[in-house]
Structures are given as structure tokens and as C-alpha cells.
């Protein structure tokens, strides 16, 4: 067995070390050097464009499916609602929070929030149907401070005693009025797929004697572009009104 000899500090050295420890303790108490945020008592300040939980306003939705087309994670499912319109629902188990859907929404029906701390019990619950997207999810807020990181060579925490609003105001998108029109009527199949695809009943097909008349009501057309996509011969285009 080898016995390790511990060098015992002498009196002066001992006092010096103890004083050092005390000083560090006092320093931490007066001006803490940690960069940890004491969540949930404190909450980090986030910019308004933070990509968190997504809210939905059905009144602004034109059922254009853009959000579900653009979603790279295939997390958006368009579901038929009671008024026969299709509205998005998001599967948060798949969502990668890229907010392409929010950016692509032509009517700002989808908008971002700073909420990122929603808890789910299981995977099924992570599927968020349309009706749950209208109001922000229920979260218990214990925070009183908002903390912001200031980067100036050193990282400094700036604590403000106020609550940050998690649902920022969104400037509404300036909607450019567009409507669908046919630029090659000679190639129309008169199949009526545009008529049945239109969510706003803006296109009509009427049978005349040996002819079929197709008509687009520019006032009713919301410019969603569904008919343009659906037309099997691709002869419809959106024009600026």
C-alpha cells in the first residue's frame, strides 16, 4: 500500500484560499456570471419573426392549398370543414417549424407566434386539428422577467421585469387582386374540372344547343389558382386585376 502524503497548507496560505472562496461567493451573489436563463421563472426575449406555434384565422383562408403544397415535411393536411371549405391542420410530430406555410399564405390566414413550449402527452395529441389552431394553446406562464442576451465580446444577460407578448401583431399581407382567365379557349376540353375545383363557385359551365359555355366571374374569383393547377390542358392563368 502506498500512502499519499498530502501537503498541509500553512496558516497564511489557508486564510488566503478561504478568502478567495468567500470573494467568489459574494461576487456571484452581487453580479452573477452565469448565462443560464431560469426558465420558467424567466423567459428569453424572442424576435417577432420567431418560428413557433402556428395560429390560423379561417376568415382569411381561401383554401388555396398553398401551405400543404409547400410543406417540406408533409405535415399539413387539408380537411374539409362543415362549410365545405378546406382548411389546414398541422401535425406537430412532423412539423419542422420552417414556416414556409406562413410565408406562402396569400391571405395571412396562418401566422407565427413565439410559443414553443407546448407539451403533449403522446404522438396522437401532436396532431393539431384546425379548430385547435384558431386560439393559442393553453400554457401556464410563470415568468416575470424577460431575459435578453447581449453579445458584446462577452455575453451579458439583460433582465427586464416585464412579460413578453408571445403572440405578436402581424401586419396583414397586401393582397394583389388576381383572377383566373383562359388564354387558349380553342384548347378547352369543356371537362368542367375547373368548375368543380373552384372553392368559390366563380366558374360556371352551362349547356347550350351543341355548345358548352364556360364563364369565370372575376368578382367572385379569389385568385387562389386551384383551377389553374387542376386544368388538364393548362390553359388557365392568373391575371392581375
Amino acid at each position: 500500500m502506498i500512502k499519499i502524503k498530502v501537503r498541509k497548507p500553512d496558516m497564511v496560505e489557508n486564510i488566503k484560499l478561504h478568502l478567495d472562496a468567500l470573494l467568489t461567493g459574494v461576487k456571484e451573489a452581487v453580479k452573477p456570471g452565469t448565462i443560464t436563463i431560469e426558465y420558467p421563472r424567466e423567459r428569453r426575449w424572442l424576435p417577432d419573426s420567431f418560428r413557433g406555434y402556428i395560429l390560423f384565422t379561417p376568415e382569411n383562408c381561401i383554401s388555396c392549398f398553398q401551405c400543404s403544397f409547400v410543406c417540406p415535411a408533409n405535415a399539413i393536411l387539408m380537411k374539409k370543414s362543415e362549410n365545405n371549405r378546406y382548411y389546414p391542420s398541422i401535425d406537430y410530430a412532423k412539423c419542422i417549424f420552417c414556416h414556409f406555410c406562413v410565408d406562402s399564405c396569400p391571405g395571412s390566414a396562418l401566422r407565427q407566434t413565439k410559443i414553443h413550449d407546448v407539451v403533449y402527452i403522446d404522438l396522437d395529441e401532436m396532431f393539431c386539428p384546425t379548430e385547435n389552431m384558431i386560439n393559442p394553446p393553453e400554457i401556464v406562464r410563470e415568468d416575470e422577467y424577460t431575459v435578453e442576451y447581449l453579445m458584446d465580446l462577452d455575453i451579458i444577460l439583460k433582465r427586464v421585469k416585464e412579460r413578453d407578448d408571445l403572440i405578436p401583431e402581424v401586419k396583414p399581407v397586401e393582397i394583389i387582386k388576381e383572377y383566373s382567365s383562359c388564354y387558349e379557349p380553342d384548347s378547352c376540353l369543356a371537362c368542367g374540372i375547373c368548375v368543380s375545383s373552384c372553392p368559390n363557385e366563380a366558374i360556371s359551365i352551362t349547356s347550350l344547343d351543341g355548345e358548352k359555355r364556360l364563364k369565370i366571374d372575376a368578382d367572385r374569383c379569389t385568385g387562389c389558382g386551384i383551377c389553374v393547377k387542376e386544368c388538364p390542358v393548362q390553359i388557365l392563368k392568373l391575371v392581375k386585376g
Partner: protein
Amino acid sequence: MIESTLEWDVRIPEKKIEEKYWLNLKKRVIESGLCSHCSTCSLICPVDGIISEDREIDFPDWEERCVDCSVCVRVCPRWDYNPLSDIGDYIELVAGKSRRFRGQDGAMVTEFMASALEMGLIDRTLFVGRDEEWRTEVYHIRSVEQLFDIKLTGTKYSFANVLPEIKRAMRTSEKGIGIVGTPCMVSGIRKLQKEFSIFRKKIRLVCGLFCTENFYHHQLYAFLKEKGVDFSKLIKTDITRGKFIATMTDSEISFPVKELNSIVPHGCEVCIDFTAVESDFSVGSVGSDPGYSTVVVRTEVAKDVLEYIKQNGHVDFGKVIIEVVEKLSNLKKKRTKNIPEEYRKHMKE
């Protein structure tokens, strides 16, 4: 700015029976044995319901999915069947043999399409290739290099799904598309172009093939198998001088083409167009020496391509004996007797 409209009319043909248009087509064309399997209806069907496979043209779930739009009837070349025959009008008649490509005879179809690609007249063309069992499959050709594949050239004598593929080619083609097809397919394309302007703009060059008949793959396969043809070794099928010749790597099997009569589809029995009269140019082996192809140039577009070929010296020219083409054309014309009375009256007018 493209001119566009918010209101337009579309002419709709009259129904023969008070049912959906698909049923009209099925009763009048398919079930009466007039259908030539050109698959124009399958190309245009807006709900992609009409299927053209190695059997009769069909729309299995038409009751639910058919939107009764009438386009299948509008494009069908046999709805109001008014067949053309003989050689028709032409600008120039040449026999040629490509110096670059290997094909059925003189590889003139390949040469014309390759030249059209080089000229920039078209940027897509559809060729029919084959798998190990000589099932046909359509290839989208975008460069001349692709055409050196021997599997793409040469005659297969089976229906190919060329026309439905046009839809896919149209989506990406900017300059235009070149199509190679049998006379019925050419008629289908012309009717399509007559009805719908987008096809007038996109389909720029139509090559017709001299054709006596075409077969369903499964029937021809079974027939040739019985004759002892080994499809893994088969390199060429040909019909010359009344004989069907299957050339394999080590042997050759031939028999009189008349033996195939039992499997000739009904649609071919009522066809009297041998040279694809409505095409831009037609090509076939008949009327020229072995190793050469006869080319009937009918329109200015095809004439331009021929001029380009002449300038570049890609082709050796030979002699055409027009009488032989006329003879076979007349032979096919005899099938007029198979055409139902209703349409024959129409023709005499």
C-alpha cells in the same frame, strides 16, 4: 401580355345514344371493332380514366369517374370514320440510308428526327423501345446521342403507348415535339390538332410509318413463341415480300405473313391507309432496295428537314419504285369491304 378571356364557348358533338360520351365511344367504336388502338382518347381524357394497355381500350370505373366531357369522342379518328388511302399528295419521294444510325432498313425515321433535333425544330421526340420480351415502352428522346441505342430503332409490330406520353412531353417541351406513329396514330394526332390549338403549337413533326397491321403484344408473343422464336436472342422482326422474318443472334425463323391473320386486331381490318397520308412525312421499307427506306415528304416542315439532311450529307440516296408502294397501298384499300356500310356511304361523297 397574353390575351385572355373570361367567357368562351366549346362545341360539343352530338350523342348517338343518350348515355355518357364514353359509352357512346365504347359502343360505336370499340365494341363495333373499329378501334385501332391509337390511344388518342387516352391521351386527352381529363381524368386520366381511359387506359390503353396490351388489350382493348377501356375505362373500367367510368361510372364514377367519367365527367362526360365528350373529348374522347371529339378526338377519336374513327368516330366519324372517313379514312384516307393511296399515297396522297407529296412534295418529294426519296429512298435513303442513314450513314450514322442503324435501324429497321435505312434508319430514315431516326435520321429525320435526329436532324429535326439538331435543327432545333423540336426538342423532344418519342421513340418506342423494347424490353427482353419485346414489350413496347416509350422513351423520351432529348438528344441525338440517345438515338444510337439499337433497342429504340427497328420495328416491334406491337401497339405502343406513344400518344398518352405526349402529355408528359408537352409539360417540359419548349420548341416542340416530334412523333412517330402508325397511320391511325397520325390520324389521331391530326384530329387532336384540329380540335385543340395547344397541340397545333406543340406537335411540330409527325412521322407516319407504312403499316399493314399492328398486333397486341401478348398475342404476337404467344404466336412467335409457338413458332420457336427465342425472345432473349431476337434482334430484329421484319415483314418483307409476304413473309414475317424473326432474326435471332444464331438463327432465323420465317413464315408467311398470312398465318398471322388470326391475330390481326379488328381495328386494322377496317384500315385502308397504308402510307399515313396525313403525316408530315412517311417512311417504310416498301419501294426501295434492301437496306434503304422509302421516304414520302408531304409538308414544307418535313421538306426543310430533308434539305438539312442533304446539306449535311448524312444520307446515301437510292432509287424509289413508286409502283410497289402503290401496289401495297391498293392491297390495303381492298379492306374497304370490311368497313361498315354507314361509313362507306360517307366516303363516296
